[in-house]
């Protein structure tokens, strides 16, 4: 009788498990499964680069092929995390270079990546294939040149919304002529012009190229040439979509697009000249992803486009689409799963477009598969929220941003508590929620009561007292990421729910009411948490203990206190010389 499966069999079984959660669960079953699982894990995801240190990771998982790391908290996207806070990739790269010489993939998000790091990557991994940098900063095009020159087997190079020091476009020319393995190139966030002939030749010798996202500097006139060379493209990001109106360009664009039979996703469209939009109409029925969020086209054109995209699954668009366009969307795009509507003029109080809550209500009515919503607008009502909730109980992500902080229900002037309450009540699988508008503690009561699957919650300018925070921390069982700004939440709720914080990845609180003293107490009592106070004021040591901190970032960690902090970040409650 066999007491257990032979290792090889178990390994084979485990190889079908791709989800991190499943793998983590498997490793907890018993010691032998733990051992087996750690040897055959190939992908690691570290959601907070300070939660664990690379040595621990390498020791436990010796044969990893793909590492994904995230650095700064999400609110860093909105400039709430001061520069120099941390999130440095270099220490990780150094260890990984030593520990995983056969590593193939690195994905970094919101980290500071230097040219040094990129050079190290390019030289350390013989079989390096995938580099994806999202919202990263700290490197220049020189670092990219090193990657281009040295990574002979590179397949994917994606720079998503990074801040790159653009020294020149020459980096692209560093890909050697023998380099033919490129499958995906995303340089959309770069500003400088690359040598067009180098780009042309690169595309020509990359038969497996499926994704190409150009930057704004690539003019529309060059697009047909590139498309002719890569008719197999599945995802295309155009460069600048404007040119003088010439019939020859129109027809060559039309022809080039029509050759791309596999094109499913389009993006780019900077500086759109509407006359050139019809060039890709023939692609519309095949499109599943359309990102027009940089296209300042007006509603009639946008309506015309979406009306033809019968297979569209994801749409990102500016509020120029207006309610009429969204209505057309709801009638034409029955497969729509994700909708993101961005504001065209967010810093102006008066509406410049006719986009209201009605647009989203129509889409919620007409699109039965709608799961994910990001919607910026200027007015909303409880009744609209309730309608949306009842129409779409299958929502998993609901992020509503009413531009004016604390804006009430525009019909009744009441807080939007009941509306958001309906959302959490009806949408039982809601995993991500962002709140806005006028909200009292009551909305948090609803959230704590109903949002049992909620994983990430973003709160701004809401609530009346600690009760609000307490409802969330005590009620939301699945909560892992909580980010709060400008809310009157203080010490009480935080300290009462200290244990909860260890079950979460992180908690961000800025411009709230948590005192230095409470942070210190929390840090002392919870050795498994780093309680970081981020405060740029001078004379921090002379500020009284009951004074509120500017910003607070609490995260669980097994790596202990970090030592790469700038002067304005302190880990509270550890034996820290800097803060008494």
């Amino acid at each position: 009788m066999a007491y257990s499966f032979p290792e090889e069999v178990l390994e084979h079984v485990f190889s079908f498990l791709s989800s991190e959660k499943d793998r983590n669960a498997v490793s907890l079953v018993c010691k032998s499964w733990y051992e087996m699982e750690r040897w055959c894990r190939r992908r690691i995801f570290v959601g907070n680069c300070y939660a664990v240190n690379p040595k621990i990771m390498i020791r436990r998982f010796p044969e990893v092929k793909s590492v994904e790391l995230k650095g700064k908290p999400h609110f860093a996207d909105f400039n709430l995390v001061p520069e120099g806070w941390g999130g440095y990739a270099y220490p990780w790269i150094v260890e990984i270079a030593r520990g995983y010489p056969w590593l193939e993939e690195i994905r970094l998000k919101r980290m500071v990546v230097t040219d040094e790091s990129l050079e190290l990557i390019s030289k350390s991994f013989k079989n390096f294939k995938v580099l994806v940098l999202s919202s990263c900063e700290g490197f220049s095009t020189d670092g990219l040149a090193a990657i281009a020159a040295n990574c002979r087997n590179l397949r994917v190079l994606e720079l998503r919304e990074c801040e790159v020091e653009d020294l020149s476009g020459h980096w692209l020319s560093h890909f050697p002529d023998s380099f033919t393995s490129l499958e995906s190139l995303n340089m959309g966030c770069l500003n400088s012009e690359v040598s067009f002939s180098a780009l042309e030749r690169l595309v020509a010798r990359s038969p497996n190229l499926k994704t190409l996202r150009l930057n704004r500097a690539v003019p529309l006139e060059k697009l047909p040439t590139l498309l002719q060379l890569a008719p197999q493209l599945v995802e295309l990001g155009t460069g600048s979509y404007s040119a003088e109106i010439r019939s020859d360009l129109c027809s060559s664009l039309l022809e080039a697009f029509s050759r791309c039979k596999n094109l499913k996703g389009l993006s780019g469209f900077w500086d759109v000249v509407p006359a050139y939009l019809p060039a890709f109409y023939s692609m519309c029925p095949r499109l599943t992803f359309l990102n027009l969020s940089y296209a300042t086209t007006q509603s009639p054109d946008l309506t015309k486009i979406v009306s033809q995209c019968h297979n569209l699954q994801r749409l990102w668009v500016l509020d120029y689409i207006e309610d009429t366009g969204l209505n057309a969307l709801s009638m034409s795009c029955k497969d729509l799963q994700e909708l993101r509507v961005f504001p065209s003029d967010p810093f102006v109080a008066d509406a410049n477009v006719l986009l209201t809550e009605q647009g989203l209500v129509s889409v919620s009515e007409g699109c039965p598969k709608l799961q994910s919503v990001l919607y910026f607008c200027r007015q909303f009502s409880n009744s609209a929220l309730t309608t949306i909730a009842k129409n779409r109980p299958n929502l998993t992500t609901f992020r509503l941003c009413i531009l004016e902080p604390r804006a009430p229900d525009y019909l009744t002037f009441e807080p939007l508590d009941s509306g958001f309450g309906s959302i959490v009540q009806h949408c039982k699988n809601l995993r991500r929620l962002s709140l806005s508008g006028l909200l009292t503690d009551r909305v948090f009561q609803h959230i704590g009561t109903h949002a049992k699957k909620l994983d990430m919650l973003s709160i701004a300018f809401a609530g009346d007292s600690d009760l609000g925070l307490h409802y969330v921390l005590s009620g939301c069982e699945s909560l892992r990421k909580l980010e709060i700004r400008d809310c009157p939440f203080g010490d009480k709720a935080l300290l009462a729910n200290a244990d909860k914080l260890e079950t979460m990845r992180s908690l961000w609180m800025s411009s709230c009411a948590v005192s230095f003293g409470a942070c210190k107490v929390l840090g002392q009592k919870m050795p498994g948490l780093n309680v970081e106070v981020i405060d740029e004021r001078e004379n921090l040591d002379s500020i009284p203990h009951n004074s509120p901190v500017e910003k607070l970032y609490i995260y669980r960690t097994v790596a202990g206190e970090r030592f790469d902090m700038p002067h304005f970040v302190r880990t509270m409650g550890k034996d820290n010389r800097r803060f008494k």
Partner: protein
Amino acid sequence: MRVDSSQKLSGTISFLLFPPGYLHCSFHFFHVCKTLSSSMSMSLKEFDYIGSSEAKMEKITHKQDLNLKATELRLGLPGSESPERNTINGGGMAALKILVSGAKRGFSDTIKTSSGTWGFPDNGGSEVDFVKSGALFSSSSSPRIDNKNPNSVKEAVVSSSTKNYLHDKHSQIASSNGQDSVAASKGQVVGWPPIRSFRKNSMATKQTKNDVEMGSNCVYVKVSMDGAPYLRKVDLKIYSSYLDLSSALEKMFSSFTLGLSESQMDLLNGSEYVLTYEDKDGDLMLVGDVPWDMFTASCKRMRIMKSSDASCLAPRAMAKGSGRN
């Protein structure tokens, strides 16, 4: 009694990670939570989070006579009083009006008119212990029940919300991002609305790019005229000076101005109409003040206003005019 699974789970975690003494505290905290959520009739006055009796709890669950300010927890060391509580009520009505009528306010208005600061007085006046013993953080004061002002829901809610709205000036100034320090100096809120820098920068450069680009780009702006049935659009790029633009507009709109003499129609210097434009910031400006290039770069739309409407903008028009409104 409902079994609260979160209680069990966190109890387990506590066991694994903390010394035994802790376990007692953590269970207590969750015990308190259950009380809050289930409104049970347990006599836990001194444990009651919001510092009042069950009657108060029922009020809250029935959404009536909500007096959130009175039950609101404030920070402070034990034994000190809260000086600001009563003044907030007074500010409440004003804040309510502003907030309610604020369909057209910008963020800067919000900041300027907020009626109080989120102060941190040394107060323990309304605090209660969570647990009698083994508390993580306790204050020794007794519950404070303030029933004297059963405000309407709206007012209480709005006033406490606006009262709490302090955007710490420090975090505005401390922001190192150029775009945001400009925004902050205009009275806008840092990091709001939540739009990534890449997108913000793209939108900004988009506008300047449109104007600065040579040759292929045109700058079409709408031109409206008071009293005209429809608007026109002009490409600012094809004109080289204000005079050029003005004569073109005059020709364009001549059909709507029958009966006016040439001097009256003169848009730049005439007295009947005034040529204005809306700039990048949304402000109404008089055409002609800034250099031509700057004008084409910042003009979003134009409006030919009757001088009677534009009296504050165009004093010279009024002065020249014969007093005709």
